[in-house]
């Protein structure tokens, strides 16, 4: 099978793509779409499943897109001037994106972050030179949101707050980039778009674009099955401060995923597809496979917000040994 891959083409022109760029910001977007084949063996032959690998963005996540769009629009409309500090609340990936973009454009960045985000995320943000202010681990992302509001109220003149939960340019980024990319990458064949809900920006923006192209495309939101969950990056909407850019009526459906199912899907993606992702990708994949199993034909596309290297120190990997043991037992039973 390997020799069918053109890893090092010896003839013809080199593959298209940006070979030289003037800044790392020019590498945001245009991420690849991966066909999922091993995890989808129980679906109808005419159903294809794809995942958009947002970990290929230079900041390592889908959040590079909205962060860049919100900052660009802030500069354009005069809200972000050179004397200001970029301030926002984030559970990690948006913080990394803002820190990276701030470093390139020369703006200081301050981020309100729940103290229990993974150590890797904190170190990455520090590496880009941004400052972190920690909120209580007991209060989740809403605690960071409150802390950020207080800080802004004290010195509103000092800051530019992209405000990813309420800034329409968050979803605009996906309307302008993620949506068209998927339309083009699936050769207009996409029938279902399945994605996790955090701010709702990915679903709202991408969904709106796809619906304009074909109103029959189903937009499916993925959320944790309970307010108390372990799916970093996702929000249980009924028990959270609902983001201002999130409109539930724009969804055709919501699917709830348990933390355990999402984690095991992460393990399977690593072992069977060779893709190491974070827990929100595991949840998205689990839901996309559920959708794919229900249909006879179609093209189901999900989105993996990032890769898994930022989560190696987290609880995600606590059940890994048991999972491996169960797999080994099943193989042994099968061989017996």
């Amino acid at each position: 099978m390997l020799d069918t891959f053109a890893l090092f083409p010896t003839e013809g022109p080199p593959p298209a793509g940006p070979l030289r760029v003037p800044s790392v910001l020019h590498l945001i977007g245009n991420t690849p779409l991966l066909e999922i084949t091993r995890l989808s063996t129980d679906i109808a032959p005419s159903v294809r499943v794809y995942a958009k690998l947002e970990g290929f963005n230079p900041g390592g996540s889908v959040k590079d897109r909205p962060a860049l769009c919100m900052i660009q629009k802030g500069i354009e409309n005069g809200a972000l001037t050179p004397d200001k500090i970029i301030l926002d609340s984030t559970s990690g990936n948006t913080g990394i994106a803002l820190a990276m973009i701030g470093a390139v454009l020369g703006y200081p960045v301050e981020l309100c972050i729940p103290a229990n985000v993974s150590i890797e995320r904190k170190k990455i943000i520090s590496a880009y030179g941004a400052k972190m202010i920690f909120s209580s681990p007991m209060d989740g992302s809403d605690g960071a949101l409150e802390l950020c509001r207080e800080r802004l109220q004290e010195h509103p003149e000092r800051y530019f707050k992209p405000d990813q939960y309420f800034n329409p340019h968050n979803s605009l980024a996906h309307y302008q980039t993620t949506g068209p990319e998927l339309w083009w990458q699936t050769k207009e064949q996409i029938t279902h778009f399945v994605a996790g809900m955090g701010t709702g920006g990915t679903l709202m923006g991408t969904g709106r674009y796809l619906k304009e192209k074909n109103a029959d495309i189903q937009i499916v939101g993925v959320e944790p099955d309970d307010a108390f969950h372990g799916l970093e990056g996702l929000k249980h909407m009924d028990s959270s401060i609902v983001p201002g850019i999130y409109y539930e009526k724009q969804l055709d459906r919501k699917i709830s995923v348990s933390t355990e199912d999402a984690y095991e899907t992460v393990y399977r993606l690593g072992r069977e597809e060779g893709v190491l992702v974070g827990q929100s990708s595991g949840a998205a994949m689990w839901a996309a496979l559920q959708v794919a199993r229900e249909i006879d034909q179609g093209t189901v596309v999900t989105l993996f917000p990032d890769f898994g290297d930022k989560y190696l120190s987290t609880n995600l990997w606590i059940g890994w040994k048991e999972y491996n043991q169960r797999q080994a037992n099943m193989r042994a039973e099968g061989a017996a």
Partner: protein
Amino acid sequence: MSAQVRIPTPLRRFTGGAEAISADGATVGALVDHIESNHPGIKERLCDEAGEVRRFVNIFVNGEDIRFINNLDTPVNEGDEVSIVPAIAGGSG
């Protein structure tokens, strides 16, 4: 043994909004059972079907993670502070 137990926001719907409650038990497991008897529904959030602490749940006794002590058999002494902390922050995507 009576300990103070700090409850994270998503579980406060079981404690009438209380951020901290008192509970009795000589071990963390006994403490969880006691909390369940006063606040039904909370244990299944903390423990799986096998009775083990769910993998995304961290429980600390005086700041020490019980996974590095003796899990649910970790002893609790009078006046200890027990914290239940979900291993997530939530809210991007």
